[in-house]
Structures are given as structure tokens and as C-alpha cells.
């Protein structure tokens, strides 16, 4: 069971008040993109064992979207942050690097 914090309304609750909506920080390839880019946007997802970034929604609460950084292996939640960003903020990265010194960054795995 994950304990998730919603940065929009400030509620912290267990995961059943929320809903996970898959990998975060995807580039939305659309018109003008190549078939390969469009295919990868539609179908190809990372499935890391370890640090992962996801989009979540406060489904049974304020209804707003946000991002969560967590570990898929230990279920440790590193933190949540605004949905209005294309990359994890520095404070979240600092927490992850502190907890997982050998993590090689978001770029290395995308």
C-alpha cells in the first residue's frame, strides 16, 4: 500500500483515494512525427525495476492531476510534484539521489 500526497489540495492518504495513470514525462508525438515516434508514444512504456515517475490523479478527492516519483521495487514513495512540468523538479531529484546514490537519472533510461 502506497501513501500518496496530493500537492494540489494537501491531502495525504493511502493509494485507494487516488488513481495511477501510467508513465510520466512522455513526449506527445502527433501530426508531423514519424511512424516510429508515434508508435513509441502510443505503445512503448518503460517498466523499470527501481526509480519510476508516474502521473497520478486525486480521483476520489480534489480531482486534480500531479506527478509521483517512487520505487517500483520497494514501493518507497520519494515525493509528489506539480503536473505542470515536463521533468522532475530538483528537490525530488535530490531526494532520489540521496536514497538511491547509484540511480543514473531519468535520461539514462529513456
Amino acid at each position, binding site marked *: 500500500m502506497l501513501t500518496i500526497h496530493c500537492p*494540489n*489540495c*494537501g*491531502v495525504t*492518504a*493511502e493509494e*485507494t*483515494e487516488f488513481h495511477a495513470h501510467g508513465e510520466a514525462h512522455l513526449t506527445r508525438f502527433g501530426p508531423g512525427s514519424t511512424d516510429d515516434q508515434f508508435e513509441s508514444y502510443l505503445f512503448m512504456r518503460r517498466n523499470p525495476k527501481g526509480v519510476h515517475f508516474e502521473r497520478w490523479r486525486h*480521483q*476520489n*478527492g*480534489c*480531482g*486534480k492531476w500531479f506527478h509521483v516519483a517512487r520505487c517500483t521495487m520497494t514501493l518507497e514513495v520519494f515525493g509528489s510534484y506539480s503536473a505542470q512540468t515536463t521533468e522532475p523538479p530538483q528537490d525530488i531529484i535530490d531526494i532520489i539521489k540521496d536514497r538511491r546514490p547509484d540511480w543514473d537519472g531519468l535520461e539514462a533510461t529513456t
Partner: protein
Amino acid sequence: MSEPVTALKGGTNTAGFASVTEIGPIGMITLRGRLSEKAITKSAVAASGVTMPEQRMCNTQGEHGIAWMSPDELLVMCPYAEVHDRLADLQEKLAKHHALAVNVSDARAVFQVKGEGVREVLAKLAPVDMHPDQFTPGMFRRTRLAQVPAAFWMTDDTTVHIICFRSVAQYVFEVLCVAAQPGSEVDHF
């Protein structure tokens, strides 16, 4: 004019260690807009007759109230008979603002759960810390009750008011009655 009818026609169950009663109808207006805009909060205050609540709180006085629903949403409560007039007034005040006000009174059901064990009834159904130090009268929480979305607040230490969608009123009533069943007390709080 037809008579307003609530989802369960005021159904009640007093068999449990807390009583469950459908109350209402209550006038409810969903107001969406930027809460940092004075005109929006001022119109909500005028329509409800109570002051503006803080984040995740609600201010209620009898049937009048404002609940903080999200960073861009308020729930304005008033007597059912007044909701049309108050909504018209609200919409006139907000005509020049980017805001939305809708009468949702008939789309909702409202329950009152009352008794010493009321915190326990809620704690069984919602992922909310109902400890008296953590959840206090005046706080407002949107969450789930078992499998459906709901919102609740305490009007005093032994009374909870719950709002849910009208379509799940029977489910919420029954699940509250089950959680309050005699003999199922946990006596945690």
C-alpha cells in the same frame, strides 16, 4: 411546482451504534473559478451567508455553508427553496468573470450519522485518519466511502454530514448501516 423528493425519502436506521439518516434536500451550488479572484469568493460568501473557509475546511451555519472542494471549486449550501434565487444572483454577479455556477442539489444525497461511535463508522469506510486530534469539526474531506466517492465534515464531535451522488444513495446508506452494526464496535478512538 412539483415537490422535491430525496433519493431515499428521508430513510433512517437507528439500530446501530450510530444512527444513519438521510437528510435534505439541501440547496447545493457548485462554483468553479479562480479562488484567488476576490469577485468569486465574495459572491460565494454572499450566496451562502457564511465566511470563506480555508483550504480543506468548510464553514456551515444550519443549512448555509461553503465547503472548499479543490483549488478551483467551492460548494455553496443554502436552504433548498432558495437555491434558484441564490444561483441567479450568483450568476449575475459572476457574469463578467471566468467562472461556472451550477445547481447540483438534486444530483446529490446528504446523510447525517450521529452517535458516540461516529468516528469509527467513517474510519471503517474511508482512507481518512479519524483520530480526534487529526480530523476535527470544521474540516471537510472529499474521499471515498467503500467503493464510491463522497465528502464529509463533522458539525460536532458526534455528528457527521456526508454528501454523495444521488445515484449511489442506497449503497452509501446501506454501507453506513453495516459499518454501524451493533456488536461491530472496534472502540479504537
